[in-house]
Structures are given as structure tokens and as C-alpha cells.
């Protein structure tokens, strides 16, 4: 039912199964193309037998600017998952996991220390999913989101910055067990 391959710009004409889902954000063209241009191996898609995109992951490789090198919040060379989405009809087939694994492979090939991502602290389903794949909470970014997904009375929501160490991090220096206890401000997040 599915093929996994790199994203190509023409896929933007086949995104409806994913992007008409209210949980998936649609960005400007330049945003998608930037990922395809800079990190083509980290932008992977799953397509169905008719060429419709039923899932995709967008990732990038980066480190904090050198000027932050001595900051405690400095991020060394790592991969970041910007977006991952699976069409409703293709859920519960492990497509998200396969896409994440492919991004890990690409990140390892690029000698990254770890992969990180941000998730709403109340999105328990997603947090459990990432934990099942070896991610752990590295820190809590207070009031990172300007709205709350489940409580309309609140004006903000915390984010979990979750990480998974890669092959380069043999000593697991870039993850911690008690990440939930480390709180930072959004301004500390690069």
C-alpha cells in the first residue's frame, strides 16, 4: 500500500490526504522547498498506490550559532524533526515510526549527536509514541505555545523538548533521565 521515498516538489500536488486533516498545518511553498533544497535526505514521504502522499516527515540538521557556544543552552550538531504527519486513512500502520527511523538513518549518516523535536506537554499520545521510539524529555519549555490545545481558559502551553541520542553519542551525553525537571524559557530555546 505504501512506498517510502524522498520528497519531490511535485508531491505538493498530492498532499490533500495529509494536509486537509485539521491536525496538519500547511506552510508556504518556500518552507517545504527549503527543506527539500537543504536537507533532501531528511524530507521523506510515504505514498499510496495512486501517488497520493499519505505521510511525510520534515527534518533538518543544524547547531546553535557559534555565538552561543558557551551558553548552557547551546545545541551541538543535531537533527531536528520539524513536522511529521500521517493521513487519517494510513494511521495505525506504523508509518510515522518508519518515517522517523528513516530520518534517524539520515541523521546518523550526517554524524549528528541526537534528534530532537518539540511536542505539546498535553499531547500524551504523541509523547508515548516518541518514548516508544527511544525519545526522552530533555527539558520543558515553559509557555512555548501561545495557546492551549485542550483548555481554552489557558493562554499558553508548555512544550517538551524530546531527544533521542544517535550513534555518535556513545556515552549518551546529550540526553538526561530527569528532563521533566529542567525548565527553560522560550527565549533560551534556539
Amino acid at each position, binding site marked *: *500500500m*505504501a*512506498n*517510502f*521515498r*524522498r520528497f*519531490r*516538489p*511535485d508531491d*505538493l*500536488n*498530492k*498532499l*490533500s*490526504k495529509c*494536509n*486537509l*486533516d*485539521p491536525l496538519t498545518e*500547511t*506552510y*508556504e*511553498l*518556500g*518552507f*517545504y*522547498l*527549503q527543506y*527539500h*533544497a*537543504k*536537507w*533532501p*535526505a531528511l524530507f521523506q514521504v*510515504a505514498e*499510496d*498506490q*495512486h*501517488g*497520493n502522499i499519505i505521510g511525510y516527515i520534515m527534518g533538518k540538521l543544524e547547531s546553535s550559532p557559534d555565538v552561543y557556544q558557551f551558553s548552557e543552552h547551546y545545541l551541538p550538531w543535531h537533527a531536528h524533526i520539524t513536522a511529521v504527519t500521517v493521513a*487519517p*486513512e*494510513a*494511521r*495505525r*500502520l*506504523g*508509518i510515522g*515510526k*518508519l518515517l522517523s527511523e528513516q530520518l534517524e*538513518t539520515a541523521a546518523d*549518516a550526517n554524524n549528528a549527536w541526537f534528534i530532537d523535536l518539540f511536542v505539546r506537554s498535553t499531547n500524551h499520545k504523541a509523547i508515548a509514541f516518541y518514548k516508544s521510539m527511544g525519545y526522552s524529555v530533555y527539558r520543558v519549555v515553559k509557555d512555548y505555545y501561545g495557546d492551549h490545545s485542550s483548555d481554552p481558559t489557558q493562554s499558553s502551553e508548555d512544550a517538551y523538548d524530546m531527544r533521542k541520542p544517535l550513534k555518535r553519542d556513545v556515552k549518551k551525553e546529550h540526553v538526561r533521565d530527569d528532563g521533566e525537571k529542567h525548565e527553560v524559557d522560550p527565549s533560551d530555546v534556539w
Partner: protein
Amino acid sequence: MSSYARYARPALKSSVDVQLQTAFSDGNWNLVIRLADKRFKVLKDPYYEAIKICAESQLDGTADKCAVLVAIDELVRQKAAPDLDTLELYEWASADFLHGIDYSDALGPLRTRWVKANPKSPLAVQCLQSCLEYWDLVSAQQIAAALDKTYVNSGDRRYMFWSITLTFLLSISPQCSEQSRNVYCMLVLKQLERAADITENSAKLELTDRGLITEEEICLYYRVLLTHGTKEEFLTRIQSSRLGPLHQLKQGRKLLFWETLTALENWGEWDRIFDLCHQALSLGLEDETPSFFTCDLRAWKAFALAASKAKNEEAALGEVQNTLKKFISIKSKANAMYKKNISIALLETTFRLPKPILTPSPDHKGLTPRVVQISLFLDHCFDKLSAFDDVKDYVAQLSFEEAKAFMEQVLPKMLVDKPDKLSQVILKSLNCKLQYLLTTCPQMLSHHPSMVEGNNYQCRFCANLSSLPCQHCLKKIILEASDTYMQIGADKELLKSIPRLDKDPRLDLALVMGTSILKLAGLRQRLSDVDPSPLRNVNPGLFLQAVLLLDTQLRETPSDTGLRLLLVQLYLLLGCATYAHQLWVPMDVKRSILDALGPLFFDRITSISPGLIQGGRSFLEPVRMSYSTSLADNCPLRIWDAFSTGSFSSILSLTEYDSRLRRSCTLVMTLIEERRAIRCYGGKIDSEIDDLPLAADIVDSTTLVNKTDYGSFPNLESLHGLPIQDFIRLGPELSNERAHLSFLTEQYFDILSYKPPKDYRPVKSNEVAIRERNYILECLDRLSNSLTSFIHLPETPSRLTSPEMTYYSVISLLSAALLTGISTTKADPAPKTLQLVTSSIKSALAGLRASLTVSTPSSLPMGDVFFSLSDMHTMSYARDTALAIKHSAAFVLAFHEKEVARDRSGKSSLHKDVVAEMKALEVVSTKALGEIKKHVQSLKEALGEGGWLDRMLEWTFGDEGEAEDEVTEAVSDVVDGRGGAEEWAGKVLESWREGVKGWGMARWD
């Protein structure tokens, strides 16, 4: 200058004094001019003169603004290497002109000249970037080649691959002269062959070697080989142990494998495909820990298809089965997605097996291995959201005997085997979908000589005489689906379980019922190019029932986008544009998906309800803005990002995508719909269509591309017929032909509406008048030829609705009539062809007028009003045609009056026959417009009458109190009767009223 910010004001050299620096950064241009002039006179440094010119370009006067172009031209002529800081200033100052002038004739060569003189300067890359931003491939290639030559021994491979990539891009670009093309083709191929040989022949490659090392470099090589090399070279290279796709796969890189597979499929190299897929799939079995990395469905399908085309088909398919067996034995270790791929691969392979192998024993007629495999697949996956989509293409291939066995033995057995209530309703829903699917398969009918005209076939399932689809079977499906739907609604336990399912089974049941009723109503694919509105020949009651039923379901499952898209189309068809818009908005179609999804709502919208766009461009503004943002630069978006990171395959795909986006049918549709809406309400169109930057690349020879995404439409149809979107759409989808005709029509209107600026007072008015006349004739001649050639393309009639065909034919005739009219003066002989042309125009208009008043079949309990409300498209084109005729005639008559006033001798005024014909056209069109206006008025009055809600319900369900037929009864059950339909009827009515109100405000003169 930084990338993507070329409009940012450049910094002046640090040696420039603070006073001038400050004036420049403050934009105090008069002061800058004065100071720069002073400095130039004192220091004799031409840089200050450049600053002065640059500042002058910011003033309002045309001469001041253009001074920079003169300065650039002078630099180009000097043949000397220019100063880079001066170039930066000039590039910034001329930014507004650079869309109009050719960068490759001006700044590109200057930058190239500078780089050749300073090849080791770090600023050389900036020059390359600048040339790329203006997509001047000629200069960019020369700069990259110069950089490669300079750094050939430096170990920096970046310049080598930039040079190769740019040589390749140039070789396939229209910017390349035909004389140079062969040289570039050969050059790029040789460069890459050399690099490939280095890779093949080196024991160990260093990162500084000039071989192919990264996946991107290797893929670039194969792309070039595919374009400029021979098939044999490609086939030889893919066998390479270092550069072949298998080696890449072993390293976890799949891109080359897919590209190779595509190339081999295009060439029909089935034996090689078989070997490649076999080896690729077997890679996963080599290690102790199996890998499913290559177990993509495409690989399996290609493997099975290639096997079925092998000389020894049986042995090859046996090999496929062996490989599959190995994977099946380790399937438990696979991810759910790969398990499913393997299961479908098994189905695929079974369907590729030769017929004799598939013959069942006489005791089990129809229960062939194909049927057994489908049943095994469904046994595991029947409750999954995609189960139907996964098997539908296979079920549609079954013979009647197989289908019968499947429907009458396999599915009932599954119902027995899965007795829990939830499984039962899911299976029943699946059963209904499969039954519907089979009604779309021609093998389910047999030829039957019949006395009844048109019924020469017999349905093999129900034995009734029928055409496709079998009406009896459709009715049966509707009743079964309705029963199951009601069963679910009445069972609290089931209702409680639904949220745990992939999908609410009622949604599928409603879709089956809805599409079956649409078919019963007579909504089918267009049978001929001159078909009237799609709803003219349908049973309105049944059509309304289908819409009502689907609308009711949407209230239950509002997040289902497939159903929502279907309803948007149906409401547009019904003429309820405002209600369709209400359904469209929550899908939040925006930004990068507008190109593919925008047409699903916006195409032809002004012919249904221009009032939606009236008073501004709010609806289409986001669509146009998305193009303006994405196509603002001449170069493909993010191209420098791809160059700077060495993503060579991305460079090629970004270039292809950009070229396609600039030729998008949706882009043309956006520009046209906006202008039609503005014109409809007498608004002012800002600029001629040719002057719009977004239309800059569109000429007659441009192939405009439609990329509408129908992927989310629910589609229960088999491959034997058209998908659902093709018969619920108002007319044929976007096309090159329609886009060009609409674009040319706008150009025609631009000629008619052109007015010289008020302050334009030519001194030699007679000379100017002659030139104007010649210019108009030239434009009309070109337009007439273009319109005629597009109208007469063999595909054109099938790309347009009937009113569109008439409209564009009339525009084509009008352009010819105007050409003849304006070129025939009083002194010329009477124009013989003019009367023929005008009489064709009059007949075409009469035809459109007549189609507005087509009488309703007397058997239907509704007046013309339903058909008129659901066919505003025809009314719209009748109006547009009449207006086009009126404006054209007025244009000629005004031209004549102007000539009479200008030239007292009367020699240049138009021939009396021309004037007479135009006056006649004016009369005919005015009369038609009056009638059409009256038609709208009468619709408005009709909708203003009382009792509409009851009338709508009567149209939908028939007279109250009368016995309902079984289909109506089934629908009534699902929608909770007439009471449940009242709110819906109110919305439909309101939308019609709003639409007609919008038409009421349109301009009619």
C-alpha cells in the same frame, strides 16, 4: 547582497565619508546626488558617479530612473572588468527594470567579466548567486566554469559540481543557443563520465577527489546520462558495483533505485526490472536481522509485473512467490505497513499468474486462487479504513463467475465467521461498496438482443435487462445500505463502539447510497461535447435526495474531507455557491496546496456566482498572493539553498517544479476569475493581462499544466469507468486549451477597453491615428489567428462546456469581424466575409439564448426554475457573449466616429456595410441582454414567492401523502423524513437566493 534580499539597499564602500553614507542610508536622494557629484568632481573616482546615478534612479522622473540603464549599457560596451561595488549599486538601482530587460545581456556579462578578472576573490561566489537569482544560466555557467578552473587542484569539489550542474541546466534550457547546445551536452556528459571513471577505478576515494562520492553527485550523473547519454551507457553503468543502484541501496540510499526503476519501466526493460527488483528485495534477506527497507509496494508490483512479462513466465512468477514466501516467513518481525505491503504483493502476484494455474476445480466454480487471496486479505484487514481501496482494483478484475463466488460465498462466510455486531456492520458496509464497485464493471453484463431500445445488455447478477450500471442492482444496494445504516443508528451498543473504529461505517454506507442515487438520477459522464448542463437530463428529485443524504451524513461526520469535497462539487453543480463555500472554508485550503486544490472550488466560480467575489478580491486574493510570493523571483524558489548545500537532485527538481508552476492552469484560472468578477460588477481592472508579472511567461506555445489533486475524493468506481469527480463536475477540468482561450479572451477585452492616458496629447495626431489603427489591426490579427487555432484543436470541444465553446467561438469570430471591419474603409470594396461572420455570431448568441429557456420535461413536478437555478453557468455565458458582442460593436462604431471626426475627407472612416453590421450586432446583443436580465429578474421574483420550503421538499420526496417509492423511503429513513430535511432545504434555498441576488447586481451594459 545576501540571498533573497536583493532589494535591500546595498552598503556603500567604507571609504565613503559619513555625510554621504548617512544621506544614502536615510534615502535622502537629492542630498546624495549633490554630495556624490561634489566628491566625484574632487576625487575623480567613478564610484561616486555611480552613487549619483543610483540616487537618481530613486527619483520620480523617467529620465532619472533610466539613467542607470544607460550607465549599465556603457559598462557592457566598455569590455573592461567593471568595479564590483559599482555593479552592486547598479543592480540594486535597476531592480525594478530587471524583469523587463534581459539580465544575461546586461549585468550577467558584467559579473562574469569581473569574476574572470578576479577568480580567486571570495566575492566571485556572490556574483554566481546574483546570476542565479536572475536565472541567467549563461553567465552563471561561465562563472562556475571559471571558478572550477581556478580551484581545480584545491580539493574543493563544490565548484566542479556547480559547473557541471549549471552546464547541464543550460544545455536543457531555452537560454542555450542551438549552436552551443550540443557542445554543452557533450561537455557535461564527458565531465561526469570522467568523474564516474575515477570512482570506479580508485581503490579508495578521498573527499577531495574529483570522482562521484555523494548520493547527490551520483544521482546527478544518472540524470545527465538519462538526458544526454545513450540507453546502453545507462544500462551498463547501473551494473556498476560502486555506482549502481544496488550498491546505493546497500548504503541505505533509495533514490537511485527508484530513478533506475522508472527509467527501465519507460524503456520496457522487463528482464532488467525483474533482476533489479529481485536483487533489491533479496537484500533484506541477506543479513541475520532481516530488513524490510526495500519492501515497498512499488518494488513488489514491478517485480510481479516483470515476471509476468518474462519468457518463462511460470518460472519467473515462481521466483517472485519464493521471495514472497521468505518474507512471509519473517513477516512477524515486520512493521504493520510492510506486513500489509507483503500481503498486497501476494495479491498482486496471484493476479499476475497465468490463467491455467488459476482455474479452480469444477466443484468450486469461481473460487479461484484470486478470489481466495482477496478473501484471505480481507479476513485480516476488513475493518481497516483502506480495506476497500486496497482490494478494489483486484475485485474489478474478477470475471463474473469469480465475482459471483466472491459475493455469494466468500463474503457471506465472513459474516458467519465474524458474528460480533461491530464486525457484521463493517462487513455489510464493505459488501455494499463492493456490490457498487461491481455495477461499474462491464464484465458483469452480458449481451442480450432485446426488443427494448437501448437495453441490449443483461445484468448477470440480477438477470434484468440493463445498461451499465444496472439500475436494479443500484436500487438493491441502496436498500441494503439503508437497512444497515438504520440498524447502526438504532443500536446504542454499536453507536458507542464507533469512535473506536478507523471510520464510522455509516459514512461508507451514506457514500454508497449517495453515489448510487446520483447514478439512478442519471448523472453520468458526458456523452458528447454538446451536452447541455449536467443537471438538464437528470431526475431532479433523485439528485436532491442524494445531496440531502450526503449533507445529512456530513453533519454526523464533519471531519471527513472526502465527503466534504464531494458535497462542495455537488452544491456548485446545483448552483448553491455560497453554501458550497461554507463547506469549503473549514478545510482551510491555503498556501502551497492552493495550486492543486484551489480549482475544486474556484474553477468557473464566476460563471455560477460572481457575487461571491464581488466588492474586492478577498476570495481569490490568497490564491494570487501565493503565486506572487512563490514566483516573485526569476529563479526557482530556494535554488541557492540547494546550490550551497550541494543538493544537486534538488536543484533539478526545483527547476522542473518552478517551470511547471509558472505554467499552471490554476494560476491562469485565478487571474481570469478575478478579472471576470471585476468586469461583472463594472469594476476597474488595474492592468492589462499581459502586463501582469504572473502572466509574463505565457505565450501561445506555452503548454499550461493542470495538476488538480483529486486524491481525497471518495471513489467507489472501478478503473473501467471515470472517477466520481469527472461526472459531478460542472464541466471538463482545467486544461491547456481552456486556459489559453480564456487568456486570449482577456487580451481581446484589453484591446476593447484600452483608453490612452488623459494627459496624452500627441502633436502629430494623424500620424498617431494611423499607427494606432495599424497596432489594433496587428493585435486583432494575432488574436484572431491564436483564437482560431485553439478553437480548432481536435481536443478543444471535449475541454469545454457547451456554453464555453459557444462563447470562445464567438470571441474568435468577433476578433475576425473587428479585423475585417477596421481594415475596411469607405474607399475599399464591400467586405464580403463580414456578413457571414456576423451571422454566425448572431446564430451562436441565439443558440445560447434558446438554451436558457429549454422547457422542462412535462413529467416533472417543477417548473423551469430548478433547471435555471442549477444552470447559471449557461446564463452567465449567454450574458458574457452578448456583452462581448455589444462591446465589440461599440468599439468599431466608436472607432468609426473618431475617424469621421478626425479625417474630414471621410477616406479613413469605415465602410458603410461595416457600420451597418455593427449596428445590427449592437441591436441583437442589447436585446439579448435585456432578455437575460429579465430571466434573472424572474428567477429573483420566483424565489421571493412563498411556499418554497414545501416546494423543495416536494421536489425531493414527491407530493406529501403520496406513496413513496422504495428508494425515496430509504432516503427518508436515513435523513429522518421531511422534518429532518427542512433545515437543509432552507440552506439550499438561501444559497440560491444569494446567488441570484448577486446576479441581480451585475452590470448589464
